[in-house]
Each structure stands twice: as structure tokens, then as C-alpha cells.
């Protein structure tokens, strides 16, 4: 939630000052929101939002104290944040906590906030550029008063967040690119069909080819995805400062083993070419020591590639033609794929 919390540095609204977070995992500075408090007739709540400027994850530290003489119930599965103008994001927590009179509960819950569905769907941008959040207190209830129908505004007032400088890009394959890709893919299928027939006949095996190499391959592009003969790629891209972030998720449903050189995948602009400075993999997925990620049939991979890119670029080309198909020893895509600077058509499209 890069946007999120990068920027929760402002102070105001009667809050206490921010504190540093125990969740620092990268070199980038960890920042936090201020701490906010709400006091009701049955409980008091204290909440702080922590995050890292480059990660789509924040942490909500909450403390709830029972201030009355009867138990209160906390339904942690209902703890959620509402970004201003966005959709709710649930904290990654479940369970029921029952607090006896005078007891308190404290925990720090991971939470991924999505500001606007379309921006998230097309660009993978999850944070709140307006850095204003509402924390409903309806996860707190007791038998007498019922659900606490209030909310805690985790607003900050301060300098305009740096996210305002974000530039979104969108993949822009034109019709000739798609038509050429159809032809390219059909050639690969015909080549593979010939190979298979030869191999299987030589072994005396029944020839059962799962695809019709003569029919038109299925190639479709629609933001932010490209589907080509079973290689399905989701590509999202934005630039912050001089760093270009390219989110890639590939699902291999093709009849080939795909060799994806994630750590060497070139990005070109203005006759300049570079490889990723950093590749972030999801938790639990290790990068390749060789720079080649082999994607078996049926498998998926996802990563965020970070390039150095001067500000003000009108676009760039991602060299998808470096993606290689093992069985036919050929490139999967006939050419690189262009990305254009996104120009919002309406304010609703771009809340940054």
C-alpha cells in the first residue's frame, strides 16, 4: 500500500503524534499514521495505521478497553477499513474476543486497503491516495447496547502525499501487433504438431494432438491482460519518482513450457534499454538463481519488476519477446509490448 502509508505523516485532529512501527522489513523508512482514540459508553478504542511505502500491506494496531460493567464482544473478522471513496478492506483476522469488565485487547492486524476498484483492477494500485480512512467500530458490541454504531476517522492532515506524482501506464497492443501474434502463434503450433507426430510415431504411440494447429489461435487483449494461445499475462504498471513498477502475473495454460527471464526482462524507452533493478516476488515464492523462471504447464508466477525510468516518459516497451518456449525453442511473443502513458478520461478514472 505504497500510497497508503507513505503518507500518513500529517498530524492533526486532536490526535497524538505518530510512532515508529515494529514492522520495518525493507530499507525504506517505515511510517505510521497518528494514533486516534474514540471513547463510547461501553468501550474505548485506540487505533494506529502502519505501513511501508513500497508494500501493498499495512498494519492496523488497535487496543480496545471495556470501560463498563458487562462483557463486550469483539468480532475480529469484521474489522475493516474504508478508504475515502473506496471499498472496504477487511483486516486479516478472525475470531471472537470477549472482554470482561475492565479488560482490554490489543493486536496488530495486517490489512490491504483498496482505494478504488477500477484502479486496482487495471493497475494493481491498492492504497488510498487521499490517505483518509474510516474504521467502523461495529466489530464491537455488547448485550445491552448492541453494536457500536460509530466509526473512527484515521485522517491525517499534512502535506500532499507523494502519490500525487504517480503516473500510470497501460499496455497498448494495436491491431497489427495482435494479428502478427496470431500468425506467430499459429506457426509455433504447426511446428509443435509436426514435432509431436514425429516423436510419437517413432515410439509407436497413438498420436493425440490436443490442439488444432490449423485453426485461428485465440489472442485477446483487454486491460490489463493479454491472452495468447493459453499464455495469459496480467500486466500493470505505474511510475513513482524515477522508479517504474511493472506487476506481472502469468498463468501458463499453453502446451509449452515457458521460460520467463524475469530478472533480465528488458524495458526500453527512447532507445535506452535496462533490466530490472529489483524483482519482488510474493511471499513464499523464491526467485530464480539463473534469472530464468521456468513456468510449467498449468503453473503461475507473479512478481513486481522495478526499473529505473526517467520521469516524463510517454511510454516504454516491455521486451516480452524474451519469453521463450522450450519445446519449440522459439520466442513466445513475436515482438515487445508497448505501454502508453495513461491519460485519464475523467476524474473518476484517476483519483491520484
Amino acid at each position, binding site marked *: 500500500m505504497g500510497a497508503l502509508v507513505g503518507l500518513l505523516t500529517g498530524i492533526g485532529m486532536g490526535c497524538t503524534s505518530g510512532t515508529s512501527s515494529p514492522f520495518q522489513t525493507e530499507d525504506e523508512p517505515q511510517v505510521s499514521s497518528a494514533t486516534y482514540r474514540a471513547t463510547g459508553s461501553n468501550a474505548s478504542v485506540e487505533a494506529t495505521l502502519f505501513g511501508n511505502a513500497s508494500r501493498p500491506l499495512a498494519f492496523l494496531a488497535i487496543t480496545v478497553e471495556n470501560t463498563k460493567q458487562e462483557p463486550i464482544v469483539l468480532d475480529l*473478522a469484521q474489522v475493516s477499513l474504508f478508504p475515502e471513496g473506496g*471499498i*472496504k*478492506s*477487511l483486516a*486479516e*483476522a*478472525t475470531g471472537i474476543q470477549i472482554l470482561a469488565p475492565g479488560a482490554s485487547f490489543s493486536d496488530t492486524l*495486517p490489512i490491504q486497503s*483498496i482505494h478504488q*476498484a*477500477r484502479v486496482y*483492477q*487495471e493497475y494493481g494500485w491498492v492504497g488510498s491516495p487521499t490517505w483518509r480512512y474510516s474504521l467502523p467500530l461495529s466489530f464491537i458490541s455488547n448485550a445491552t447496547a448492541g453494536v457500536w454504531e460509530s466509526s473512527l476517522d484515521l485522517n491525517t492532515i499534512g502535506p500532499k502525499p507523494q502519490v500525487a506524482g504517480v503516473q500510470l501506464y497501460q499496455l497498448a497492443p494495436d491491431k497489427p501487433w495482435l494479428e502478427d501474434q496470431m500468425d506467430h502463434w499459429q506457426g509455433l503450433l504447426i511446428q*509443435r504438431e509436426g514435432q*509431436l507426430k514425429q*516423436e*510419437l510415431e517413432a*515410439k509407436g*504411440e497413438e498420436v*493425440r*494432438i*490436443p490442439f*488444432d494447429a490449423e*485453426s485461428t489461435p*485465440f489472442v*485477446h487483449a*483487454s*486491460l*490489463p*491482460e493479454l*491472452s495468447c494461445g*493459453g499464455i*495469459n499475462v*496480467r500486466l500493470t504498471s505505474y511510475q513513482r519518482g524515477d522508479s517504474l513498477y511493472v506487476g506481472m502475473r502469468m*498463468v501458463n*495454460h499453453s*502446451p*509449452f*513450457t515457458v521460460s520467463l527471464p524475469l530478472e533480465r526482462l528488458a524495458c526500453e524507452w527512447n532507445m535506452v534499454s535496462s533490466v530490472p533493478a529489483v524483482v519482488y516476488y*510474493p*511471499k*513464499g*515464492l523464491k526467485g530464480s538463481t539463473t534469472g530464468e523462471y*521456468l513456468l*510449467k*504447464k*498449468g*503453473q*503461475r508466477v507473479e512478481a513486481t519488476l522495478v526499473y529505473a525510468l526517467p520521469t516524463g516518459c510517454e511510454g516504454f516497451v516491455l521486451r516480452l519477446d524474451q519469453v521463450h518456449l*522450450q*519445446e519449440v525453442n522459439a520466442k513466445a511473443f513475436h515482438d515487445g509490448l508497448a505501454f502508453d502513458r495513461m491519460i485519464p478520461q475523467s476524474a473518476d478514472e484517476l483519483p491520484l
Partner: protein
Amino acid sequence: MSRTRWMIPALTAGLLFGCMPEEDIETEVEPRMNEGEIQHVTEQWHREGVAGANPGVGGHIMMQAFYWDVPAGGTWWNTVKGKISSWNNAGISRIWLPPASKAQNGPFSMGYDPFDYYDFGQYNQMGSTQTRFGSKSELQSLISRATSNNMEVIADIVINHNSGGDLEYNPYTGTNTYTDYNPASGKFFRTASDFHPNAVRNSDEGIFGGFPDLSHSQGYVQDWLWKRSDGVAKYYKNSMGFDGWRFDYVKGFGPWVVREWMNHVGGYGVGELWDGNAGYLKWWVDQTNRTSSAFDFAAYYKMDAAFDGGNLNELNGDMLWKRDPYKTATFVANHDTDIIWNKLMAYAYILTHEGMPTIFYRDYEDWLDKNKLNNLMWIHRNYASGSTSILHVDNDEYIARRNGYGGNPGLVVYFNTSGSWKERWIQTNWSSDQIKDYTGNSGWEPWTQGNRWVKIQCPPNSYTVWSLK
């Protein structure tokens, strides 16, 4: 289904009806077939599913009860369990769970890299005891809750490939391969001969890439997947309580594998054949001997072109539901692909048309207006019956009629992607009846004429669904 199942209508005189006054309609158009009408000839919608399920006249609605990267930490089964009751009330009658058994990536895995098909979170292997989603008892509790709510539970079956085996010498390749599987459950040990290549086959319909690609031609593999009483299929059905199957990546092996599986254990089945070619999808369904449905990727891409691309004529294109509606699962997004932005339109389409609609968890729980989806599911349950007649299509208008069945009146759905209100005369199956728009997007409550014609309307960038008041 071959093209002969479609009756391409005789085209009649121009598009005058939409602007004709009522008296003209009554006298002039009665004998005519509506301009551009395509009569979709199908059997009537049938109810399928377990006894006690209550899918409504429109048939089942399935919830895809996960998305990619649901919260890790073993909480997901309980999260889903907590929603069963509300989903049931909304009309969901099937839930599709992610691959439930232990995978190579242990507590981080979404399950698509299967290692031990019998470890649902009760064995400490691959870095954890619980799966990403929770424990075996939590999964069983979820299934029990769903079953008691008359909902079917669909297991995600990944049998193309395995992951996480140990390295061993492979006599078929002459190299070392990761094909030595010693699951803690003690069931379905695998070695090199259970993968391609082996003494039986060099490869299956997917192409061997030097990785653990299960060889379904091996008798041992067949035994453990679907033949043995404690094989994967029967264990999942009889011991775990799953009612059906969503087959992952069926492009990777022959359709006969699914056919065999279904013949041995039955239940509802649907295959993920990721291809926008409706003919290919229908070919695959037929090759399973129609024991399994397929997800309608053709409809998915057509809806994208229609609702996002600004050309509703795309909805006249070829889709699996038009070829074989009983063996079609329609969807708007899933854990792997999400390209349709105008999603409410797309949901209105799949929930009023044939095929079994699938609701994506995030769309229902997080992204879209739940009340509007509930309204569409209510319409599906109550009026989405019978065959389909497409009454009118142009760039920004689409009108179709479900013809009803067994006394159910069916419906008429009207899409308008233009920026202004639209009105159009259409022919219904209702004579001298008052109708209304059940979405509430139009306040009209017109009467159909004796010849069944009526004028309906649709707001800009919206939809209306009409049936008897």
C-alpha cells in the same frame, strides 16, 4: 451443438417497430418475427443437483469462494463458513473452494501445486501443518455447514501436475527428476513411472516439459485418482463430503480423464478450458461424454468486448451456453482473470441467460453493490427459465427473452450502454398482462397488448429485467 440447432430467422422489414405507436403495432406486426430475432432452440432448463438443494427455476448459482492470495494464516475456511448462511439466503446453491490439500508451498500456497492429496491440514509437511486456508477439521466444519444449508461444495481438482517431490534417478529420462513423492498421509506414493515419460506413454495431450506431469494412462495413477474406494475422487466425495468437481487446467490432459473420473464418482463437474473458442469448448464437453460442464470463456471474452468495448453486437457471437447450456458455467471474473470493468452489466447478463452463473467472491463481498447482485440472483431464482430468444441487438442495445417453463413466465432483459434513455417495442410471451421491471431501474408498469407486444425502457448505462407483475 452444431449450427443446425440454430434457426437463423427470416429477416423482416426494418426497425420500425421501436418507434411505432401502439395502434400500429397491433395491426401490423403480429404475424412477423421480430427483426433480427435469433431463435435459440434448447430443451427447457432442468434442475440438477442433490436432493434438497433449492436452486430456483433458473438453476444453480455457484459462488467462487476465494480469490488469488486470500489471507494466509489458516483462517479462510472459517471466513467462508461464516458467510454460508447469508449466501444461502441470497440464492447461492453451490460453493467452489480452492484446492484444499497440502501443496509444495505449504502455508503460502493457493493449492495449485499439489503434493499430498490427503493432507487437508492435519500433517506437518511442506513447512506447516495447516494449509493456507486452515485445518482439516475447519474444512470439514465448513462443508458440514454448507451441506446443512442445502448447498453443494465443489472441490478444485488439480491433477495435471504435482509439485514438491524429492529428487531421484529417473530411468526414463536418464537424469535426476523431482518425481519421488512420499506423502505423510501414506496414500498415493509416486515415483518416476507415474509421470511422463514412462514405459506406457511419452507424454499426454499436454506436452512433457521435463516436470512432474502425472501420467493418467498409468493404471496405478488411475487407481489412486478415481478407481480405488480410498482414491482421491471417492475419498473427497465419501469421506470429506464434496459434491462436485472443478477440474483445473484441463488443456493439460485428455478429456477422457475427466470422463473416467465422472463415470466413477459422478456429481457436478466443470472444466477450466481457458480458450475463447466456443467450438473448442463444446468439443471438450462432448469428449467428456457430457459428463462435465466447462467454463464459458467464449462468453467471458464476448462480454468484455460488448460491455467494455462498446459494441453489444458482440453478444450475438458464439458462446458455449448457446451450444450446450446445460453444460455451461458462465462467469464474470475468477482468481486468474479479471478484465471486465462493467461488471454489473455482465452479471445481469449471466444471471438472466442460460448456463450456470458463477459469482466471484470479491465481486460479491468486496467490490460490487451486494444489493444489486442479490436482486439479480433473486431474478435468476424466480424468472430465468426456459429457452432464450434474442429480440434485438445493436451497438448499444440488447434485448433477450427467456421463454419460461412449466408455468414460470420467464423474463425479458434489456441492456442499454448508451448515454440516454431507450425505449423499444418487443414481443413477449404474455398477452394482456401487466409487467414490471424487477430491478427497479424503471418505474414503468405497462400492459402487454393482446398480441403480446409491449414497449419497455431502459435507463442510460443500465439494464432492466421485465416479467409479470
